[in-house]
């Protein structure tokens, strides 16, 4: 459909179909709603700009996910640099409520996972537990996604037991 030289309607379809998924992919990397939304916007704008070069070899979603992932990683690197530069600034951290303790614990455990496993676990739960979708987003074979998930689950259960 993207090859029919009428990019606008096809592009709008693409936005309708993938905006939530791309947003969740960006959120899994940025872990901040506003930044994830900016990244999602940028990814779609980049997709729009390179649309005339689309040759139909890869599926549009694979292409879009690659653009979104690269955009998010660049944004994250830039944000990390800015944060490092602002380390001297003091800011107030609100005390966690009782409700959020379990959440904080779980998130801390997930953060301790090796990067590949962490990314797969986050995306798996953010993308409605769909292994195929995660594999496509990370450009990984389904078997690799599953083995990352299984290793992560074993590790997390072990850490929770201690």
């Amino acid at each position, binding site marked *: 459909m993207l090859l029919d030289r009428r990019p606008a309607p096809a592009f709008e379809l693409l936005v309708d179909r993938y905006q939530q998924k791309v947003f969740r992919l960006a959120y899994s990397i940025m872990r901040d709603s506003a930044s994830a939304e900016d990244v999602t916007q940028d990814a779609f704008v980049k997709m729009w700009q390179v649309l005339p070069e689309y040759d139909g070899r890869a599926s549009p979603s694979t292409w879009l996910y690659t653009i979104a992932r690269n955009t998010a990683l660049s944004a994250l690197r830039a944000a990390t640099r800015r944060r490092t530069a602002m380390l001297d600034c003091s800011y107030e951290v609100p005390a966690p409520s009782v409700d959020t303790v379990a959440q904080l614990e*779980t998130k801390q455990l997930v953060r301790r996972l090796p990067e590949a496993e962490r990314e797969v676990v986050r995306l798996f739960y953010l993308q409605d537990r769909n292994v195929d979708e995660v594999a496509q987003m990370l450009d990984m074979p389904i078997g690799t996604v599953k083995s990352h998930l*299984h290793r992560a689950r074993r590790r997390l*259960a072990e850490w929770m037991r201690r």
Partner: protein
Amino acid sequence: MDETMNCQEAEQLILDALETPLSAAERKSVDEHCSHCSACAQFAAAQSELDQRLRRFITAPALNTEFRNHLMQRIRGRQRATIPAWSPDVAYSVGAFVGLIVSSIVLPFRPETVLTLGVVICAAAYLLQSLIFEFVNEPYD
């Protein structure tokens, strides 16, 4: 203990079940195995608890309802601002052509001389401009 399944196989199926539902036969085998193997039963319980926690705590906020409108506005803005990359070349050629014709009529020299000199100067200027864009600046960006 279930003779058809060892602990390693049971654990594998317990983990698989958290991603895709097991068949009835697989479910039955795992249940049977766990009813006799406390280690695997504990493993299943721990994995189930972990899965519940991850489902509950790894969630994404909703995308802003105005997202689509903002995106389309941004793209429409870019469409208006974008001119084809070859437009300056066309403008340059048309300007040079008109300039040459007018010069050959107005200037008090032979038209062939004016046209020849004009073409040479235009070509040199165009080459110089292309070199500058190539090595000094990104053109039309």
